[in-house]
């Protein structure tokens, strides 16, 4: 162990070249924000590939190397343990915990990481990134700030669409399979009822399912939302029991492989699904 002492900062000494800042994004929504803010002035690497459940990511040595040599690393602390570890080791000063800027919601006592589902939070993420990029690449500071404002504008538009689209709905209760939509629900006055908790891979309890079924009957809910990256079986079973239908609502933890969608288009598709199934009049 002796020979390691004293050289712990040498690995990151190679970043002084005046080329594009290297930005590493932990998973898709952060990649989107980086693309919007940095545009063509930065190089973006995403740690979580499309289609991967981001929670249990493992990093290869090259990916750790990319973190070590990055100028900015965008991540949400406490969401992906492997990324947290790598940042603690290799990029302590260069990391931006985008969750730090945001008032967290807690679901049943635990911090809910799914912040990106509220467009306003994306604006905050964009601003935080622009500030950081401006400080390490002052030449393009203005561009970054402009881009961040443009992202903010997009998000405002998106939020308006949601607000007006969900203004008059027959039901404000959304029944979802895992509790990913708390931020979205809070932002737009919906009521999230989740069959499972924050993690999508737990087994649902029959008692909870019966509870939800009862609640759906009482509130005349006719739709259950399932997700893209996780098995829709829970939603289907409950749908069958209650005569409701199962519809996909994407928690945007990642894109499907080969998808040409982006954050905005997925969010709009989600809105359309919500409007259609919550009985909303526009």
């Amino acid at each position, binding site marked *: 162990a002796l020979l390691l002492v004293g050289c712990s900062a040498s690995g990151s000494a190679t970043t002084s070249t005046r080329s594009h800042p290297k930005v590493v994004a932990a998973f898709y929504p952060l990649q989107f924000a980086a693309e919007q803010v940095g545009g063509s002035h930065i190089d973006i690497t995403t740690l979580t590939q499309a289609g991967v459940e981001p929670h*249990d990511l493992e990093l290869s040595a090259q990916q750790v190397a990319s973190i070590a040599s990055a100028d900015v690393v965008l991540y949400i602390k406490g969401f992906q343990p492997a990324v947290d570890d790598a940042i603690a080791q290799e990029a302590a000063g260069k990391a931006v915990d985008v969750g730090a800027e945001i008032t967290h919601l807690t679901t049943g006592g635990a911090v809910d990481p799914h912040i990106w589902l509220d467009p306003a939070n994306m604006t905050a993420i964009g601003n935080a990134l622009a500030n950081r990029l401006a400080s390490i690449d002052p030449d393009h500071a203005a561009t970054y700030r402009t881009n961040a404002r443009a992202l903010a504008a997009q998000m405002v538009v998106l939020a308006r669409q949601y607000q007006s689209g969900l203004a008059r709905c027959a039901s404000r209760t959304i029944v979802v399979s895992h509790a990913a939509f708390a931020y979205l629900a809070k932002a737009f006055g919906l009521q999230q009822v989740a069959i499972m908790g924050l993690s999508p891979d737990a*087994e649902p*309890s029959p008692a909870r399912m019966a509870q939800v079924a009862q609640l759906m009957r009482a509130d005349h809910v006719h739709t259950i939302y399932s997700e893209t990256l996780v098995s829709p079986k829970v939603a289907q079973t409950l749908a069958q029991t209650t005569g409701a239908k199962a519809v996909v609502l994407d928690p945007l933890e990642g894109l499907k492989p080969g998808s040409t969608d982006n954050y905005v288009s997925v969010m709009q598709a989600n809105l359309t699904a919500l409007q259609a199934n919550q009985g909303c009049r526009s």
Partner: protein
Amino acid sequence: MGLLDYDFMRRALLAAALIGLFAPLIGVFLVQRRLALLGDGMGHVALTGVGLALLLRTAPIPTAMITAAAGAFLIEFIRARSRTAGDVALALLFYGGIAGGVLFASLAPGQGTGTLNAYLFGSLSTVAASDLIALVILCAIIVITLVVFGREMFAVSLDAQIAATQGVAVRSISTMMAMLAAIVVVVGMRTVGLLLVSAIMIVPVAAAQQITRSFRATAALGSALGLTASVLGLVGSYYVQVPPGPAIVIVALGGFAVIAVVAVPVRRYRTTR
């Protein structure tokens, strides 16, 4: 009761009863062959299969089935070819399965283990009618295999060498046992979940063997305990709000503990083992 008002509960009850009743009948052979952790191992191998399917763009479930069967075959192959005990062969497969799964997932760009899980994991509260049919077919396969090959399977478990001199095709029967277990695990994990199917094969048998004096009695008592634990655990989970799979496993483990306590006055000997 209210419990049977929901058709998902009725299906769950039937599925739990079936798996509780029949899985220990396979489990008793697994324990005897020192493959008590085969269930979990097969789960990992099946996961590798799904990873492979995503890489090769084939259908995941059949591929998982095939890899699991290949895994069963491989265990017996390793046992027979290299001088390796059953549990060590299983460990090799197990760790190989995880490592392979992660590697494939990282090689197939954009396929994470989360995606893999979606193809494999069922749960008792979400058993569909079609799943029940698969389960009934599975149980029929178990019963038929046991009726036809049970005696040979027993002979092989007892002493493979002697069985060979009786003309029993030891390799084939061994592989058949492992395959049967693999099928149970893969079908079971799809329908009632991996934890439940792999634990319910073993835990009731482990509980039973503490007080029984014959193989047959162990199988019978194990099966009865499996059924009891399944029904109790499921009903309990309806009232206590916990997932049914773990609840059933905990009840079965409680059964083990109860029998262990009851058995101590029965057998007071054996200080070390």
